[in-house]
């Protein structure tokens, strides 16, 4: 799938991003096919969030390019990236705590001016997450973590994005809620035709939900493939899914080759 670059809505080529002197992204390339759901997996500090920040223009890359719908958006101003159709659900939800749910959603549509369309999308969000309709007049800081995550996703949808980038939507939520939210993300992906780029630590749910996956380690892509294949991969099984292969004496295998970088 990744070899076929022609239908990629987003292509990232060899980006290198730094935090001061620290190189967080060491030449990452990835492609997101239009209408698909792609996940980037990795442990803490692997650089997952930095990739999203680089794509959305919050951070600048020193090298490489980001292409969206065939146009170069490398290091573009965040507001212009949103206008082009990339909307982000930031890590840790980051709702506006003292604004009401409805006002939060209104801010998601800040760059839009079509009243009818905004209203239509508002109804769509309320249909996906009925609890938000009930809480529309309540301030967002009073919502539970799960409801805030739903609000953050809806707020990102309010800009009517072509690509929805989610940064660890499972963070701090109960397993049941994670499953519910991922199911809705998948439904949004299918029903609205929104391409989804999902950055996750929870490999199990991410691989079971998405179409295609990349595995990131210390700033590099070490593995990629269709999610169904990745689920069968021994290294992914051992390091990301926690399924260990026990030897005859019940010890961990030492000599089996890991992914080499």
């Amino acid at each position, binding site marked *: 799938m990744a070899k076929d670059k022609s239908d990629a809505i987003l292509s990232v080529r060899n980006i290198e991003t730094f935090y001061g002197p620290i190189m967080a992204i060491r030449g990452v390339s990835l492609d997101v096919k239009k209408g698909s759901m792609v996940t980037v997996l990795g442990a803490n500090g692997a650089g997952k969030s930095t990739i999203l920040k680089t794509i*959305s223009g*919050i951070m600048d890359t020193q090298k490489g390019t980001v292409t969206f719908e065939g146009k170069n958006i490398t290091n573009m101003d*965040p*507001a212009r*990236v*949103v*206008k082009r159709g990339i*909307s*982000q659900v*930031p890590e*840790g939800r*980051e*709702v*506006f*705590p*003292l*604004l009401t749910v409805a*006002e*939060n959603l*209104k*801010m*998601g549509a*800040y*760059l839009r001016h079509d009243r009818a369309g905004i209203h239509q999308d508002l109804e769509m969000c309320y249909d996906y997450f009925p609890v938000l309709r009930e809480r529309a007049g309540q301030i967002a*800081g009073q919502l539970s*973590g799960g409801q*805030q995550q739903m609000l953050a996703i809806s*707020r*990102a949808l309010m*800009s009517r994005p072509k690509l929805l980038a989610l940064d660890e939507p499972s963070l*701090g939520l109960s397993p049941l809620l994670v499953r519910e939210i991922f199911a809705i993300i998948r439904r949004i992906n299918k029903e609205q035709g929104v391409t989804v780029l999902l950055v996750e630590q929870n490999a199990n749910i991410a691989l079971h939900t998405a179409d295609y996956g990349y595995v990131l380690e210390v700033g590099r892509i070490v593995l990629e493939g269709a999610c169904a294949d990745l689920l069968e991969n021994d290294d992914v099984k051992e390091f990301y899914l926690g399924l260990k292969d026990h030897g005859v004496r019940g010890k961990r295998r030492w000599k089996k080759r890991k992914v080499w970088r």
Partner: protein
Amino acid sequence: MDKAFEVLWRIIAGASLVAFVSPPFLFLFGVIDSSALMLYLQQVVSGVANGCVYALVALGIVLIYKATETINFAQGEILMIGAFLAFTFINILGMNFWLGALLAAGGTALVGMGVDRIIIRPMVGQPAFAIVMVTIGFGFVARSAVSMVPGWGTDSYAIERPFAADVFTWGEIAISYDHAMIVATTVVLCAALFLFFRYTKLGIAMQASSQNQLAAYYMGIPVRQIFTLIWGLSAGVAGLAGLMLAPFTFVHTNMGMVVFRAFPAAVLGGFGSIPGAIVGGIIIGIVESLSGFYLDEGIKNVAAYVVLLLVLVLKPEGIFGVVHRKKV
């Protein structure tokens, strides 16, 4: 021992509060006669009017603080520039008072936006201390620069007003038109600001940018431009306050000293709360006016800080202050 001091502080605070609000009750119980009550109410009215000016200056400081987490120590100088602009439009150019007031507020707003764009924005990312020092520095420069402008200089001026320095009576209380105008303007301005922040897209975006800057960037809100607009708004309010302060302190280069009443007002209300700034300003105004009248004249100058001290000891978060914690 600390406990004992706290009790002592509470007794002092309680006793002063009782002293300040007692006259109406004393009158009801026949301890004082109606003329004494009228004198008291007279002081309260003028205190409210002065307090409204403090409130508007504090409001400007709080607006900027909430949005950018910068404390603008030059708010007083911006007020002074506003007063000089009003003086220029109304006295020198001979414009209609109301038109001149509007132009002066607009002009001051432009000055505020300029300060943000030229001085503050390049400083973004520097330590908060550095930014605060820059605002203090701007204050000094502004004071000197204004004194060098031909026609302004270091003299004191009075702005010509359509209403004479006259009074009308309400019951037995005499209210000057200047005081009435201050209160009316403050009420209208607060209502307008409330509606603006509550119902307009720009107002909500300003709140959003100050509550969560990063998320505002993600929504495509032009955060930097929004901050510049907030500086403009805050400076415009300060400009109006300067115009209203002019009948009492006159227009001169040091009239910005009024911030030393506005800072206690902002802290008293709970730094970061807009209703708090208004209420805090009015309380400071009343306390000042009453203590200046009933106690030694010198007490007037320290009254604001005595109140501030009591509040900081007993309720450090201020009257309307709330500690918001982020949920993760």
